Structure formats: C-alpha cells, structure tokens
C-alpha cells in the first residue's frame, strides 16, 4: 500500500526510442503539453509523443511564479480560470503526486482610485459567477498581512484590495512531473532534447514534423510552446498575433515563514509570495520590448526591489539570491489562443502571456476534448485564433496588468 510505495524509488518517466509515426505529436513538453497528453491518454488516445527541445518544464512551466487564481475580469476569463482552479484543487489526488498546493489567499492591492474601481468591477464579475472574491479595506488587509506597510509613508498608500481566498501557490515543477509521470504510465512517449525544425503540411493538412532526431509522421500536431509560438506556427504556415516579451523574477535567501498570503500590486507592478522553502518570490511586469532573451536585467532588479520595499519595508536587509527570466507570448487582447487553425490537424495552445500556468488543468481537458470529440468545447470557443481574423477580441487587459 501507500507507505511501502513511498520508500521505493518512483519511476517517473522512461526514455523511449522515437517512432517514425504517432497519432498525435505535441510540440512543447511544458505543463500544458504534458497535461494535454495526459488527458488524451485518459480518453484512450495513447499513441502520443511529447517533444521538448530541452528537458521537460524548461520553459515557462519552470520559471513562473506559481500563482493560481480565478479572479479575472471578463465573464469568459472567470468561467475559464474558475474551472481550472477547481481542477487544480483535486489534481494531486488524480495524479497521485503532491503538488504542494497552498490556497493561502490572494490580495490585489489598489493604491489609486482607478485601481479601486477595477477591484470593484472584478469583485462583481467574480461574485456573479460564483468565485469567492471581495473588496476589503486597510483594517481587514492588516489582519491578513501585518507586515504590509499600510501607513501613509509610501508615496502611494494602499486604499483597498481585492481579496480572493481560494487563490494560492503551487509547486510548478511538481505539476510538470506529475503529468509527465501519469502520461508516461499510460503509454505516452516523452522525448526530451528533441527540437522540432519544421512541420510538414500538404494540401492544407499537417502530415508530420521534422526534428533534430528524425522525422515523425502525424495527423495531429499541437503547438504548446508559449514564447516560441510564432516560430513554431510559422513552420506550419500559420500566422499568429503574438509578440514575445521577457518576464523576470527573483527569490531572496530563505527566511522563516512570515508571509501567509500572496500580495499583488497593480500600481507598483509587483507580486510577492513566500515559498515552502522560505524564499520570498518576487515578480513584476513583462519587459516593455519584445525579445527571446531569458536573461535578468539590472534595471528590473532595481525597480522591483524598490517597489517591493514600498510594500514590505522590512525586507531592506534581506538578500536577493537568484534571478531568472522567461518568455511570455502576448496577444492583443491578453487572452489565450486555443484550438483549430486553417491547417487541418494543426492546433494551437498559446498566447498565454503571464497567465498560462494557472490554466494548465483546464487546457489539458479542453484541448483533449476538442481532439477526442472533434468539437470545440464552449469554454474555449471565445479563444479561437479565428477571433483575430474576425476582429472579435476578448479583452482581459485590466486583470492582466500584473496578472499574478
């Protein structure tokens, strides 16, 4: 039973010989790609290959700041992320792997009138869609986070906050590994170190991919590569409205736990949480220019440290330990792109900007449903690539400003 299994090493995934054909090829071995593979396998579609040019979870899945929440601004967004959070809440049991989900509560701080109005709007949309979310004021904020500087000392004092109790953090790597393990068990082949160099399309339908380790024939190819979506889709002759912006983050040295809630400030453009290892994890906005560089920049560290100290001034002598960057595929309406393209058999899961990780479980379910049932699920219908050709955007700009 359980205790005995616990002491034996767990075979997480195997290395397979790469076949020259699969029913489905998923380009991108991050959380999304693996979630889709797992869900396909659950529906009996097991002849699936997940390809990643590096190791699994090397991209955004391993670099994000691990926040999960449902308090979005548009009804479409809320419905979508609410379902995703619900799935996250039971995912550890389903995947038989502890994902270290900690629903400690999420505070979006408002330091200006405009931000307070946005908080009101979001609270209402959330409430009417059954998401636990409400506006609270400094007295209640102080109880949730005594360390927060609620005085008039800061230049932009805190006026209110959108409080979302079910919001939380999760171990991002664990999500990747748990999906990979289950998918592997069900027969999915995971090929790391496999770089897709081209996608074959004939007569308007996809026929396979070419990689640095050989060619693979496939009737269904899914692009799940986040920041690299433009390049991969171009291989299939599919144009996208995506621009790639770097996003940075850093952690401090580990401290005994003192922060029990996730702090986000739309005015100061920072979000702060404390990991289970005690490190304070801090992120900010995307860089204001497009780039495929995942480096850290000094100005980011300076500005983000300054803004963090506005919220938590006792961190002045706490040391920054490690910084990194990742890529965000940003769409014009800050909503994702999911589903079919003009190339038959070629599907996109992309445009995830700064909010892809929190959608992982629902992405797996809906994309797998789409493939298995050959019908676009209602939940993701608003996110079709087609909407840009039809000019019917789904704007989440307010909730995505510093959407963590």
């Amino acid at each position, binding site marked *: 039973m359980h205790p005995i299994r616990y002491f034996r090493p767990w075979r997480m995934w195997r290395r397979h010989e790469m076949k020259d054909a699969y029913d489905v090829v998923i380009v991108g071995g991050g959380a999304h790609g693996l979630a889709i593979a797992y869900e396909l396998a659950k529906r009996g579609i097991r002849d699936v290959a997940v390809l990643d040019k590096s190791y699994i979870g090397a991209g955004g899945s391993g670099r994000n700041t691990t926040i999960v929440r449902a308090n979005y601004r548009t009804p479409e967004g809320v419905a979508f992320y609410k379902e995703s959070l619900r799935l996250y809440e039971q995912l550890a049991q389903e995947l038989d792997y502890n994902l270290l989900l900690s629903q400690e509560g999420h505070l979006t701080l408002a330091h200006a009138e405009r931000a307070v109005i946005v908080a009101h709007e979001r609270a209402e949309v959330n409430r009417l869609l059954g998401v636990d979310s409400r506006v609270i004021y400094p007295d209640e904020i102080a109880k949730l986070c005594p360390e927060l500087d609620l005085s008039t000392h800061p230049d932009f004092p805190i006026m209110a906050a959108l409080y979302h109790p079910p919001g939380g953090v999760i171990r991002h790597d664990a999500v990747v590994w748990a999906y990979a393990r289950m998918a592997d068990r069900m027969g999915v082949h995971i090929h790391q170190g496999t770089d897709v160099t081209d996608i074959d399309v004939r007569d308007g339908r996809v026929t396979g991919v070419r990689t640095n380790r050989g060619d693979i024939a496939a009737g269904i190819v899914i692009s799940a590569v986040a920041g690299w979506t*433009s390049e991969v889709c171009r291989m299939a002759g599919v144009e996208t409205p995506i621009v*790639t912006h770097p996003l940075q983050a850093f952690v401090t040295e580990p401290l005994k736990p003192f922060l029990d809630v996730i702090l986000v400030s739309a005015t100061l453009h920072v979000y702060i949480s404390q990991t289970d290892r005690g490190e304070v994890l801090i992120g900010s906005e995307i860089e204001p220019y*497009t780039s495929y560089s995942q480096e850290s*920049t000094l100005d980011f560290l300076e500005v983000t440290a300054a803004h963090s100290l506005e919220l938590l001034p006792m961190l002045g002598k706490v040391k920054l330990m490690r910084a990194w960057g990742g890529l965000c595929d940003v769409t*014009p309406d800050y909503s994702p792109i999911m589903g079919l393209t003009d190339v038959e058999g070629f599907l996109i899961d992309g445009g995830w900007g700064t909010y892809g990780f929190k959608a992982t479980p629902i992405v797996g379910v809906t994309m797998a449903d789409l493939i298995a049932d050959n019908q676009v699920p209602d939940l993701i219908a608003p996110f079709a690539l087609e909407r840009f050709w039809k000019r019917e955007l789904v704007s989440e700009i307010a909730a995505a400003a510093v959407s963590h």
Partner: protein
Amino acid sequence: MTFLITCPNCGPREALEFSFGGETTRRASPSATDRELAAALYFRRNVNGWQTEWWVHQSGCRAWFLAERHTTTNEIRRTYRPQDRPRDEEQEAAPA
C-alpha cells in the same frame, strides 16, 4: 534593459532612455479586405532573429527611428532615421 542603443541624433545611450515601438508594420488601406485589415491590425512576425523595429528616444531628443536588433542577443547592428528608410524595405504585415 541594459543594452545600448545608438540614437541617430544623440549617439549611444542606455536602452532605458528609449521607448519601444514594435516591429515595423504596414497599415491597411481604407479599401482593405477584412483579412487584410485583421492582418495589419493584429498579426505579427515576432521573429527570433534580426528584427526591424521602431524606438523613440523618450528621455532625450524624442525622435522616432528604426533599428535592426537581434531579438535573442539584443545586439543592434544598425539604427537610422525614418527618412533614410528605403521605400521597399517597409515590410508587409503578416500576409493575409
């Protein structure tokens, strides 16, 4: 952003002095088809490689100019004024 950009008017300056204006695009004409309009408004090349793009020297002379930058290394090999832009270099937005 800590790389340097050479403003055609002011010379090399830290990238922080500039605002990014996006890759070059071509606006749709008033008689554009739906597809051409959507392509111009929304679709982008977003290359992983050399990109021609707009920058403005926000903290300096406030002039707009073009740059050729490698989007992975952030190396900039050329900057020039819009008047020096060869007409045929204006790249198409994503093809309809």
